């Protein structure tokens, strides 16, 4: 079996779901003829035609709004943000219209909103965002952040089949950097379930998206020093898999949260609160976090490296915590 990149896994998920279900359509900027800014939708127009692969004007609110309308009519639209930073332009449609629809009047919105997020590629302040927490704070949405090709494909399929608005944040750093062999069958990965990526006894490192790989790199380094870190990949931020986090903390008694999102209001704060409420007695040390700085994402490589967590920063924090 050939190996599949994270990006190709996303393309395959859309391709296979559109093949399986004529209710699945794609709308976004340059998704058709051009195949998407990152070529995520390459070949979809040729196969599925103009009615199902819709090149839209530069109108993020209208793209999301139209996708909401399509979902009311029984379709399962995928709306693409060319860069996830532009999701800010559609904030209203997502948080007020889509998210509240089922609660307010029982109208489900089976919509997937996906796009490239994250930094590490020197995209600067407007092409590197990690906007997940704006939406994790919005009841009614689901927020998915896959870290592997298998999860990207399986979770996107689950998102398309879900009856709720799912925000699917692809990490563009991973697009062509990671690949793996994927199952040949029509598999899905359930939304709302974390995965233990590495087992360990000394501390738990919780992360998601590209930072899972950073955490694993740090864990490999720590293992050489005799520190066994357990690495948990959240995969979904909303709903959050509290059980997997708590089970690991109860086992290792120490918790480090790593995210590329900025520090204040990041998921680490929420996880800290959950652990304090549910596993305070199990802790043998203070909860630690390694996150990006509370600044916009800077452009210069040196600045961005300073801004983001690295395996070195994660290992240093983990070392300190392990020896606490």
């Amino acid at each position, binding site marked *: 079996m050939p190996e599949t990149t994270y990006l190709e896994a996303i393309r395959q998920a859309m391709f296979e779901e559109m*093949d399986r279900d*004529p*209710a699945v*359509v794609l709308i976004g900027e340059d998704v*058709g*003829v051009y*195949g998407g800014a990152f070529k995520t939708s390459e*070949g979809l*127009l*040729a*196969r*599925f*035609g*103009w*009615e*199902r692969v*819709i090149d*839209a*004007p530069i*109108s*993020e*609110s*209208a*793209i*999301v*709004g*139209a*996708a*909401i*309308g*399509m*979902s*009311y*009519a*029984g*379709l*399962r*639209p995928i709306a693409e943000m060319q860069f996830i930073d532009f999701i800010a332009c559609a904030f*209203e*449609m997502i948080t*007020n*219209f889509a998210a*509240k*629809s*089922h*609660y*307010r*009047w*029982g*109208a*489900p919105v*089976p919509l997937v909103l996906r796009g490239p997020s994250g930094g590490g590629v020197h995209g600067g302040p407007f092409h590197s965002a990690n906007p997940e927490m704006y939406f994790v704070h919005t*009841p*009614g949405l*689901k927020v998915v952040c896959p870290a592997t090709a298998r999860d990207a494909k399986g979770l996107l399929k689950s998102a398309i089949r879900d*009856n*709720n608005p799912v925000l699917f944040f692809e990490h563009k750093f991973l697009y062509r950097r990671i690949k793996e062999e994927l199952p040949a069958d029509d598999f899905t990965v359930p939304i709302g379930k974390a995965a233990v990526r590495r087992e360990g006894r000394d501390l738990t490192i919780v992360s998601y998206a590209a930072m899972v790989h950073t955490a694993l790199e740090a864990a490999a380094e720590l293992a050489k020093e005799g520190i066994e870190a357990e690495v948990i990949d959240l995969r979904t931020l909303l709903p959050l898999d509290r059980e997997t986090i708590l089970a690991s903390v109860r086992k290792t008694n120490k918790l480090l949260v790593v995210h590329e999102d900025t520090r204040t209001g990041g998921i680490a704060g929420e996880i800290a609160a959950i652990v304090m409420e549910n596993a305070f007695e199990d802790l043998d040390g203070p909860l630690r976090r390694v996150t990006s700085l509370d600044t916009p994402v800077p452009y210069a490589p040196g600045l961005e490296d300073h801004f983001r967590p690295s395996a070195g920063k994660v290992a240093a924090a983990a070392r300190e915590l392990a020896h606490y």
Partner: protein
Amino acid sequence: MSSPLTREQHLELYYFMRLNRELEEQMVRLFRQNKIVGGLYPSLGQEAISVGTAYALGPGDWIAPMIRNIGALLVRGFKPRDVMTQHMARYTSPTQGKDGTSHFGDLNARHVISPTSMLGDLIPVMTGIAMAGRYLGQNIVTMTWIGDGGTSTGVFHEGLNLAAVQKAPFVLIVENNQWAYSTPVEKQSALGDLADRARAYGIRSAIVDGNDVVAVVRTTREAVEHARAGSGPVLIEAKTMRMLGHAQHDSAEYVPKAMLASWKERDPLDRFEKLLTEKKLWDAKTKKEIDARIAREIRADVEFAENSPFPPPESAEEGVYCEGCHTVEADWQRPKEEVMPPRSSVKAEWPVKSHSVNGARPLAVRPPSPKAKPGKKPTRGSVRAKAGR
């Protein structure tokens, strides 16, 4: 062209307009009794627009009413009790107390989308339904309303532009009631006619006297036919006047008294009643029967609403997500094979018709566009021409 309205249709229009007005008067009484939980947004003087536009649609078509479009909800089959229980936050309301005012809908039976408070959002949403309807082979038209103030939003532009490039079967009613809360239309837009916004999108537009229900039905029917035929969206500006404040709490002292007085003479119900009498479409007995029926219905529904329980507090926790409680199913009216490979497959290249920009016309400074000439745009009426009927 659509056929003229029959006597029965005239009487039905009267029923809905009168029901709209009587219902709102009843709502004011409930408000004064402290039985309305939140705000109450009157549509006094605008009943002909709500009722007449919704009346021009077919049963398979979709609407998304705005806050003042109680009349459209009634035409679509909602009952006074739905409006009352919504405002009174009762468990029997269409949203079971989760939302108030006219923020309710019915996806499957009545094809009514619940509005939100954020103006303009419904334009792309209804465009999306129109696109989906075309995709599914349903031959439907979608419609929503926006006020003069709402035309200033960004999503108005994004939505209408998308509808235009997609040639979506969508009709937008711009209900120009001259006031957005306390702000007059002159401070919203430098345009004399909001219908002229349509020119920016390359779509058809019309202006109609919003206080003339027959003209509203006729103009909207033409627009609906145009949209249904695949000729693209239509914007109708219905000129009218908000006769009360923005909501019940607003005494609207900022509105010149003379302005209200002049519009009061054009009251849509008074005018329609006069027309029914002049055309001998009814007599005093018929009017009395309809009015009595309305009084009966409202009385019964007030009783229903007042006897309805409030929602159990813990139901606040329910319904954030669809967890299998609804099935999502499209109503396919065309063979699915048409949109599946190999029939859906195309050559992935743009069918660009012209290789020159705007036909390579020389650039010229154009004077501000004059008032569109009647006749140049067939559905474009003029308020002045129609006001004399």
